[in-house]
């Protein structure tokens, strides 16, 4: 590390607030030309917000960015790109229907009097793809028809076509298989050798050690350590930096589990090719079981398979000893299984419908008389539930869209309360829920369990999984690597299992 002089990009005291939440509370770090700078932090530590600030998609409320020593401010992604900063997001943003070359040069097409010089665009695209070690990607293929890995390469080519000097990569390996990750690393090495800097976000320690130069750790929107040597820093130290925050919310007390309680959900040998395999899981009435793991580890897919939304290739799911038909949501729902999906807004809620209709939608036959819905009864029943759950603002006729994240989640929970389901599957139940409302959600989940529901919770927030569950399963790359009572394992041990897969 003898590179001296001013850093390529210096981040100083960046603060970003959203209504009710401070996403970034003071971030400082430097990125040098030619280095791979890894950003590490738990879910909610502020990584995504930071990426958006660096790439010009969000403006910071305080603090400054210095590009080669000069203060810069990005009003939009174009500004950032013109300066030389480009983000390569996980959800790829190429325009399907346009060719690779058209995508690379979109917005700055080489043109004479308005006519694009296609041959030149194609030639320069080929040169860029070659520079990225991918001469195999055809420059005139429809970009929407490329694999995720190749789309990522095209995004990188686009950044380089604008003379990108700093690439921000948000968990690029999440959509890649092992070979593709190796190729990506080769590309990154070649780029950094040419002086390009990369900000690399990943949770996987082995990747950080292999590709990273320095590490910055974020916790609760602040830099807690920066400039750590990626190859030598101890995993235990990193984990200590990432965890150990002040408790902002309380978890409800666990009642001792009734050992005679009947087993409600039994999953045996569940497998889906390329996603997960050999998953066994039993949940008793009144028990909360947590699944911890990284995004992409297969935890959400396991829930979907239990719910029947994803057809498993092997294994069985039983509810109250009755075997469910594979891959059938209606069979699961009839047996009393409920799912609160991760994408609450797109999958779980009818956003423009009234609160009461969202609550009763899974139980409509109960409110039907000769085929006509008794909306008075729907409202009355919903009112009882929203009062009990303290949904605010009250009023069952308002559109769900107008509620905050926490209150939307309560509406979803109310739906399953009304249905009196036997098994409740919760995927990231507190995503987008502000800190204050979390405790209430936890309380509700506990309540549901107390009524004899078997609950399975998936969360990226390790603390949440441990605080909420009676028993914890750790999932890594589609396999359950640990199972045991929640009290007998701590946060750093789980993170260690999740990130390294080895004993600490």
């Amino acid at each position, binding site marked *: 590390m003898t590179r001296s002089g001013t850093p390529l990009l210096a981040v100083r005291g960046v603060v970003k607030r959203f209504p009710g939440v401070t996403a970034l509370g003071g971030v400082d770090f430097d990125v040098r030309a030619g280095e791979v700078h890894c950003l590490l932090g738990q879910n909610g530590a502020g990584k995504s917000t930071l990426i958006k600030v660096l790439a010009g998609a969000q403006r910071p409320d305080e603090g400054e960015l210095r590009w080669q020593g000069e203060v810069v401010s990005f009003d939009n992604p*174009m500004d950032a790109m013109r300066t030389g900063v480009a983000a390569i997001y996980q959800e790829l943003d190429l325009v399907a229907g346009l060719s690779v070359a058209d995508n690379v040069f979109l917005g700055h097409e080489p043109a004479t009097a308005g006519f694009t010089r296609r041959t030149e665009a194609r030639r320069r695209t080929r040169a860029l793809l070659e520079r990225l*070690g991918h001469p195999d990607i055809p420059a005139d293929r429809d970009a929407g028809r490329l694999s995720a890995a190749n789309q990522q390469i095209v995004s990188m080519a686009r950044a380089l076509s604008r003379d990108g000097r700093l690439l921000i990569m948000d968990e690029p390996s999440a959509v890649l298989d092992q070979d593709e990750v190796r190729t990506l690393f080769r590309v990154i090495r070649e780029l950094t050798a040419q002086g390009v800097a990369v900000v690399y976000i990943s949770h996987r320690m082995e990747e950080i050690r292999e590709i990273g130069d320095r590490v910055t750790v974020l916790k609760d929107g602040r830099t807690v350590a920066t400039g750590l040597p990626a190859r030598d820093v101890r995993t235990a130290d990193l984990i200590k930096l990432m965890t150990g925050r002040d408790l902002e919310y309380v978890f409800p007390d666990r009642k001792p589990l009734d050992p005679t309680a009947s087993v409600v959900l039994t999953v045996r040998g569940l497998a889906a090719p390329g996603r997960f395999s050999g998953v066994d899981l039993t949940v008793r009435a009144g028990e909360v079981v947590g699944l911890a793991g990284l995004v992409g580890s297969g935890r959400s897919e396991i829930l979907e398979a239990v719910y029947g939304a994803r057809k498993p290739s092997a294994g069985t799911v039983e509810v109250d000893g009755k075997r469910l038909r594979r891959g059938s949501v209606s069979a699961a729902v009839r047996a009393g299984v409920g799912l609160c999906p991760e994408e609450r807004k797109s999958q779980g809620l009818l956003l423009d419908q009234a609160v009461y209709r969202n609550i009763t939608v899974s139980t409509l036959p109960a409110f039907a008389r000769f085929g006509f819905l008794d909306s008075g009864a729907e409202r009355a029943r919903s009112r009882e539930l929203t009062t009990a759950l303290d949904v605010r603002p009250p009023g069952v006729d308002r559109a769900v869209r107008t509620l905050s994240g926490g209150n939307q989640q309560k509406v979803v929970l109310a739906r399953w309360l009304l249905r009196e389901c036997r098994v409740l599957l919760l995927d990231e139940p507190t995503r987008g829920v502000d800190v204050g409302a979390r405790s209430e959600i936890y309380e509700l989940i506990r309540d549901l369990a107390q009524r004899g529901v078997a609950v399975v919770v998936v969360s990226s927030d390790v603390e949440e999984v441990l605080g909420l569950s009676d028993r914890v399963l750790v999932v890594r790359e589609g396999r359950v690597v640990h199972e045991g009572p929640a009290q007998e394992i701590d946060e750093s041990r789980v993170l260690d299992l999740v990130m390294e897969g080895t004993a600490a």
Partner: protein
Amino acid sequence: MTSAPATSPSATSPSDERVGSSRLLDRLVVRPEIGALLGALLVFAFFSVVTEQFLSTGGVATWLDDASTLGIMAVAVALLMIGGEFDLSAGVMTASTALVTAILATRLGWNVWLALFASLVFALAVGALNGWLVMRTGLPSFIVTLGTFLALQGLNLGITRLVTGSVQVSGMRSTDGYSSAGLLFASTFTIGGTSFYVSILWWILFTAIAGAVLVRTRFGNWIFAVGGSALSSRAVGVPVVRTKILLFMTTAGAAWLVGSINILRFTSVQANQGIGLEFQFIIAAVIGGCLLTGGFGSAVGAAIGALIFGMARQGIVYANWNSDWFQLFLGVMLLAAVLVNNALRRRAERVRR
């Protein structure tokens, strides 16, 4: 450029060839206009066999003329649809522009050229308003242009009745500059003893320009991009708002061209003309391979879609069938074209895996 070039040239050249040959078929199959082309050939062959006049030069002149004004609009609407928007006011706009020209020329005694210019300005202003409203409010263009459609329809009738006391404006023949303007927009030319309307040339010219803009220019690239993903396009600096407003203005401009052709040929215009045509434009564009969701389509395809319209409408007349059958034919044609396009695209998508 470190170690890669050492291995890549030998590795890539054979694979390039392989990719090239399989891509030729691949590319042919995913061309948006392929369904329309097949349909056009089918319709052409069918009526050539079933009727005698269809293939006569007089017959050809008739169905080409029928297709021409529809074709101009279909091509403009196709560009707009590729850009991800609709314009329901396009049909009634062809009447509005004709009415503006006719009223200015016959009632106020303006020179026809001046009246045409004023009418063009009016059309472009309405197009810009459509685009501005859509971009400004973020409302679907379907709704916004439904509003302008109804408003223009009311204006057409209301103003015509106010000015003339009836629902038509006529008397263009005796206006200043009628003959010179008519030469440009409504004359005929003769090939092999048969007269063809000049509107056919306008149609071909307009299609050629639109096609070239779409595939050869930056603006064409932007049309596909804003229709495919407006967000991504904005993020890389494509002027999304300007592109879409220009597309609405293009549609309105095309409606002016068609309105001018009509008023100069027929010398009178009904205030309720053009209503319902907007769907014919969209149908022709969809037969031509445009997706309702934007980001995909072709100008030439839309022109062929209009050709199918013209051939079928006139072919049914030549076959002495009741014209009621035209709608049935249209529905079947639309479904067939969409199904074929869809199946081919699916197949193309499977090829890549």
